[in-house]
């Protein structure tokens, strides 16, 4: 059980100069299996379609052909079995931290008292209880992403989809967030699909790494990361095993090269109109 992707294909029509339509093939013959409770990273050159693939798993983009299943059920649009985290946090700035975390529960019609209990639990989990009543504008990037994690966890999805979640924070904060996400992953036993363009990040966090190549986007190879857990900050990264895996991923990326140059934004807008 878990996520199963077979022969996935995504074609995309874009309006170019003089309103001429161009057909792009964003993803072709993508095959991948993600096991329950696994931490899997997707790496690849920018524009290779890794974020597109993630949004497709989230149900925000529709596939053209192929099969995408979660626990044997084909994906048909967004669902509460998956939570997505975005690079830009996507918190609602007019809601307090508490109200942001409650958002999805509110949509689901969960009662007010129950909502606030659940929200408080996950705000505690990410260690930001003191900021429950602050507005997102008052928080740092790292804190915003932790709140976004709490918001996604609040509706208890099986799978967390993370789209370069730590790309916009500084190095020190990123390292701290790595420890946080590993701790939360261990505590909640979610399946995590993590998109990144940092090889280090992928090797340090993952059980397995799917390396993608561009134009059209394909999963080139899946690599096992057999480093022992718990991974230790400052130690794991300096072991020869870490360096070996890192080099392996890097070599595959070198061979893969290229990008399809498609724009995720356009794709999503396109699907929203369907």
């Amino acid at each position: 059980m878990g996520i199963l992707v077979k022969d996935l294909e995504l074609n995309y029509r874009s309006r170019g100069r003089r309103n001429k339509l161009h057909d792009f093939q964003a993803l072709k013959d993508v095959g991948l299996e993600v096991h329950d409770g696994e931490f899997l990273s997707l790496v690849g050159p920018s524009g290779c379609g890794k974020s597109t693939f993630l949004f497709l798993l989230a149900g925000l983009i529709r596939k053209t052909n192929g099969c995408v299943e979660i626990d044997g059920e084909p994906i048909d649009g967004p669902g509460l079995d998956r939570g997505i985290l975005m690079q830009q946090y996507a918190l609602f700035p007019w809601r307090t931290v508490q109200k942001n975390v409650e958002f999805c529960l509110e949509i689901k019609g969960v009662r007010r008292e129950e909502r606030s209990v659940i929200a408080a639990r996950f705000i505690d989990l990410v260690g930001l209880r003191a900021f429950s009543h602050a507005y997102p504008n008052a928080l740092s990037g790292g804190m915003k992403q932790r709140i976004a994690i709490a918001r996604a966890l609040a509706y208890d999805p099986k799978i967390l989809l993370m789209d370069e979640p730590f790309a916009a924070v500084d190095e020190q904060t990123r390292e701290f967030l790595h420890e946080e996400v590993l701790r939360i992953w261990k505590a909640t036993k979610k399946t995590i699909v993590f998109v990144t363009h940092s090889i280090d990040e992928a090797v340090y966090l993952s059980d397995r790494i799917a390396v993608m190549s561009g134009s059209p986007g394909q999963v080139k190879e899946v690599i096992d990361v057999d480093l022992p857990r718990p991974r230790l900050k400052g130690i794991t990264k300096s072991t020869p095993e870490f360096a070996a895996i890192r080099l392996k991923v890097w070599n595959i990326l070198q061979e893969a090269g290229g990008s399809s140059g498609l724009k995720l934004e356009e794709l999503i807008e396109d699907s929203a109109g369907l």
Partner: protein
Amino acid sequence: MKGLIGSIYRRSIVIVAVLLAWTIVPLFIKHMFMPSLIDVLSALVKMLETGEMADHILSSLARAGAGVVISVVLALPLGVLLGWYPKIEAYLNPLFTALRNTSILALLPLFVLFLGVGEISKVAVIVFGCFFPMLLSTIDGVKNVDPVLIQSARSMGISPFGLLSKVVVPAAMGFIISGFRLVCSISLLVLVGAEMLGAKSGLGFLIYRYEQSFQVPKMYAGILVMIVLGILVNWLIGKLERRLTIWQSVTDKETA
């Protein structure tokens, strides 16, 4: 405290100087059309005592208020819809642009022709003047909502109505409120014009009538009240704005 006094000083000194000049200069240069502020204020006090001023203020405010409320109630939902479906908006946009750039008072005779000289035509012309600015601000606001927020909400399986009411409208609130601010000042502007052209009450009527009968201090009293009303409305909307967009201004306070 010193900064506060300085700020009050900077903000009020020019106005105080103008009022002072208005008080003193006419005492030396006598002209029928330029009475001293003292004469204007004493006329105003008399008009307040007889209740004449209050009646006119109330009837003006009722018209402006009705016009603003009706135009907002009409323009807000339509603006959200048109902002959300830009394909429809593309068809209507040229018409909106043409109507927005038409002088509203130029259309007043048309309103009188169709709706008569009563209250309906006055409120209607205010609604007409307010509708398009409100509509266009709302459309702009909805179009400018961060798409990341919409994706995020959609990923949680939100209903189309929930998306509009819980995400799109709150995210567009900044634009909507500046539209509302604009609409309130337009309503007072159009109101006075409408009241000067055939009315039996209201501040516009009062100013026009006392101009016609050369009771100049009373005319100025009407203008003065109009100015104060404008300032008051603007101040109230400022308060409302800060209340509704409190989340925008917390940055400095909470991180400091």
